[in-house]
């Protein structure tokens, strides 16, 4: 099954705590997950202040500055993984370095049904 591991963290603290992971460690983690056959894709994200939110209402495009919602923890990155079940996905998620300073939300991927 596919799971999306969403990395949430307070952006102010992501790089400033003693426990904060260095980029090198995150790269090594991604490489390891990839070698182990778990990783389908993943990236780190620029801070939310760089975000732009897009909506289409009545065929009209609207664009706003910043994220969809203000939250205490922000989306900082994501890993799309393939795991046997939820417990294996949890095990993989527990190895993602920012889990030490933020949280990882593990979400099963819903397969869309190609319905007529």
């Amino acid at each position, binding site marked *: 099954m596919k799971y999306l591991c969403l990395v949430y963290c307070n952006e102010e603290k992501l790089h400033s705590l003693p426990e904060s992971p260095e980029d090198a460690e995150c790269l090594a983690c991604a490489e390891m997950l990839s070698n182990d056959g778990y990783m389908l894709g993943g990236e780190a994200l620029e801070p939310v202040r760089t975000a732009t939110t897009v909506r289409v209402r009545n065929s009209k495009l609207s664009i706003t500055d910043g994220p969809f919602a203000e939250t205490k923890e922000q989306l900082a990155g994501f890993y799309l993984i393939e795991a046997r079940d*939820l417990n294996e996905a949890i095990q993989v998620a527990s190895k993602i370095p920012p889990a030490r300073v933020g949280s990882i939300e593990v979400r099963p991927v819903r397969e869309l049904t190609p319905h007529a």
Partner: protein
Amino acid sequence: MSDIPLERVHKTVDDIYRGESRRVLATLIRLLGDFELAEQALHDAFIAALQQWPRDGIPAKPRSWLISTGRFRAIDHIRRRSRFNDSLTTLAEQLESDVSQEEIHNDQEIQDDMLRLLFTCCHPALPPDGQVALTLREVCGLTTEAIAHAFLISPTTIAQRIVRAKAKIRDANIPYEVPSRYQLSERLDSVLRIIYLVFNEGYFASSGGSLTRPDLSAEAIRLGRLLTQLVPDPEVLGLLALMVLHESRRAARTTREGEVVPLEDQNRRLWNRGQIAEGSALVQQALSMGRAGPYTLQAAIIAVHADAQSADQTDWEEIVGLYDVLLQVQQSSIVELNRAVAVAMRDGPAAGICLIDTLLQQGELIDYPLAHTAQAELYRRLGQAAAARAGYERALGLTQQEPERRLLKRRLAELPDKKT
């Protein structure tokens, strides 16, 4: 070596995963001393198989290959992680020096690993719901999602139970071993109880809209079979007999629409003769080993039912006798209730009503819906509609199970109207 068609390798790996992955895992847990490390190693070993077998050919002993590869990969993993954590270096060195090649491939040890895994997952220090979830996932190889689906619980809850159980095994140092001889019978009881609990959840599903969940029962029977190969104990045979004999009635227990069919109304031609023969032979084998325990005796009772053409032609004398013996080894109000029903079949409904009245007065069964149902059935047979109605209504107020409730409503509707 020549290349092997990728499709064939994938199919072989799939087959080996289904047949061997639990055994490989069981051995890896012993070699690595940790569930999570072992699970990762199992995963790595199968990934390596998918990469290497198409090129190098399928090894002569795939299981040994997977065990060695998994162990090697785990040590390699720890070494790589030790770049960020010094304490892991020592662990890697320890794991590397711990084990000799002979130990890895010792057949008896590997055979015992499945038992170690089962006894650890059913360790009495773990909460019962944790034991069930862990056994189904680690020993049977079910996914978290499949277990959640079977118990109608969210996958997160099941995942939590599994994570907690594993943490307890690690933190409390629950040993990965087959209990010593003097502990074996007590610990075996707890393993048998978990297996029977899994079976019952699949057979008598305690809640929800559907009466049975055959997958869970099939897993429990598979575990029971495995245990008979590993532990020569009469109750292990007795439990397998009990489950197989229950299973033999599955097709007759419900209608196509999912309605409950009580034993006396079941179409006995739907009973599975092959399973009855297997179950009865197991009962005989267990009885011949001496001391008959509760599982064997319950199985013996079903075997007597299975011999009869109809409820009327059942040897109720024999069944009452078996319940008497069962009560000597397992004092239980539910067994008393079942005995009362058998007595009613032997001596007439009034005798049964008298016994059930006494049981209900003792209080333990007062909230047990089947006690009231049984009482009502006997009143119905005596033609005492009002008393029967009262019993069915009490049972209806106590049961959560939809098919059971529909049966009770049907029974109530069939009773002659009180006003006429």
